[in-house]
């Protein structure tokens, strides 16, 4: 097992170091843009930006692992897979434009050549729309707009469907592989260590597995808990491990992406509703025990209720994890803010003395939040499924 880890490590090193020196674009700007830094760290990106190593004289060695783009182009009806290898967005954009795309603020658009001629002059039928830079209009499909890049006008269409395995996707895969390695090893240990007390990884995770089974699944799902247990365990450990990985330097905040939590919440929504009992649907469409006008009044309320429950799951997890990252990043940014981006030595030291204890505190708190949010998401999913499955005779 070590050999392939070593091989992977060497491969990664080769990939990383094959990217040469980069002159940083914004090192000379005196003002530290805290908001841009925060969002750059929190939002997902199409490369894995590991570090910038200062080399002096404003030169930086940027260590970045490029990740591929995978886009569906509805205009051409093709799926394109390509790397945009470049040291700046400008360079990447040049490569993208050769493929008929435009990279704008780290997002990829289709270059709409039916609107503007290659030299940037609007075609006659679109003259009116293109008058203003940044104009947005909606023809039959998608949304189109015009931007200015390097002095030329470019028309964009956002019909493109971006399926790129971004940094977050990569880290989710890492989490999945980690789970697979750890828990298949534990499963094997159960066979080797049969009739023996658990040890090592086994004894580390066994209490957690038993906790999920006995405290989360059994009380809420009754005698059908066994069918849902693998899903709940996967959910819990996936969220927990993602959150823990997000606390490591160099990695992304997986659960701080609303798309990720939305996907998990959608799965919970589907799981809840396909397991809905007759009573569950009766409560939604024909609320028992109230007068006729109230029944009609309750219908939209209950219908909205179907959505709000998983919606709260989505928001809660996303907000908690991204909030933690924002806290840590903001506190770290204090050093650069007080230290005037490294130009004031006293300010920097003061900032460090101020920020480090607070950051450590928030970091410790985040370890708690990591498992707590995983637990809450799993528990609530379980509660929703349990409520939907229950026949309400016992309540009335």
């Amino acid at each position, binding site marked *: 097992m070590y050999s392939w880890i070593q091989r992977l490590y060497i491969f990664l090193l080769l990939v990383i170091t094959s990217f040469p020196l980069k002159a940083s674009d914004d090192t000379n700007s005196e003002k530290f843009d805290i908001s841009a830094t925060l*969002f750059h760290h*929190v*939002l*997902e990106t199409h490369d894995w930006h590991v570090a910038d190593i200062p080399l002096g004289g404003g030169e930086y060695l940027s260590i970045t692992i490029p990740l591929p783009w*995978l886009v569906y182009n509805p205009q051409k009806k093709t799926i394109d897979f390509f790397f945009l290898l470049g040291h700046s967005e400008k360079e990447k954009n040049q490569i993208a434009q050769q493929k008929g795309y435009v990279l704008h603020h780290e997002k990829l658009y289709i270059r709409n050549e039916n609107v503007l001629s290659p030299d940037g002059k609007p075609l006659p039928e679109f003259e009116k729309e293109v008058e203003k830079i940044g104009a947005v209009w909606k023809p039959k499909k998608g949304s189109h707009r015009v931007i200015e890049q390097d002095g030329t006008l470019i028309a964009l269409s956002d019909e493109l*469907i*971006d*399926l*790129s*395995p*971004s940094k*977050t*996707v990569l880290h*989710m*895969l890492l989490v*999945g592989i980690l*789970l*697979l390695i750890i*828990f*298949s090893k*534990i*499963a094997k240990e*159960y*066979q080797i260590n*049969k*009739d023996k007390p658990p040890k090592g990884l086994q004894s580390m995770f*066994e209490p957690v*597995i*038993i906790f999920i*089974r006995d405290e989360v699944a059994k009380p809420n799902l009754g005698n059908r808990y*066994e069918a849902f*247990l*693998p*899903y709940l*365990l*996967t959910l819990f450990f*996936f969220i927990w491990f993602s959150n823990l990985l997000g606390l490591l330097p160099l990695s992304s905040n997986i659960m701080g*992406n*609303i*798309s*990720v939590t*939305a*996907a*998990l919440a*959608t*799965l919970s929504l589907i799981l809840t509703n396909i397991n809905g009992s007759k009573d569950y649907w009766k409560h939604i469409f024909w609320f028992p025990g109230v007068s006729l006008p109230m029944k009609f009044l309750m219908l939209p309320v209950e219908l909205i209720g179907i959505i709000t429950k998983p919606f709260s799951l989505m928001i809660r997890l*996303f907000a908690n994890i*991204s909030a933690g990252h924002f806290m840590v990043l903001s506190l770290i940014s204090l050093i650069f803010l007080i230290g005037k981006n490294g130009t004031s030595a006293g300010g920097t030291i003061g900032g460090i003395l101020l920020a480090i204890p607070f950051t450590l505190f928030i970091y410790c708190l985040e370890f708690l939040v990591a498992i707590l949010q995983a637990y809450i998401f799993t528990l609530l999913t379980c509660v929703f499924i349990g409520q939907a499955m229950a026949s309400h005779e016992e309540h009335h």
Partner: protein
Amino acid sequence: MEIILPKFGLFFWTVVIFLTFFLILRKVAWKPILRALQEREQEIEARLQAAAEAQKKMEQITQQNEKMLQEALLAKEKILKEAQELKAQIENQARQEARLLAEKMRKETLQEVEQIKKSLKDEIKKEVVEMSFYVAEKILSRELRNKKTHDSYVEALISDLQLNPKRVTG
């Protein structure tokens, strides 16, 4: 704003990755682990129950043993007592028999002694008679040497014989 807008790509990949790993983990990890846990719990429960039963049985056996021991002690005492009684009885009997035997022997000895005494007496009597005869003969012969005495004696004898005719004929 961008941060709170879900993106289709990431949503799609999350679903794909999560469900893929869910299916793999369910097969590779969760089912074996949960089965092993359940089996172990059942086994522990069964063993605890068995241990409780064994203890119960053990207690029963101990009680039984104690009872048996008590009984054995009682039996031993009884046997000892009986043996002592028997011993005493045998001793008594032996003593009695010995006494009887001694008595008998004494009687026999006495009888024998009596007999010997009797026979000795007879013999002595006979001897005495013979000696008397001898002595009498000696005396007579000495007396009779004297004519006068001899005659007087014969006369006395004859007179005696006359007085007691029976003796002459006898």
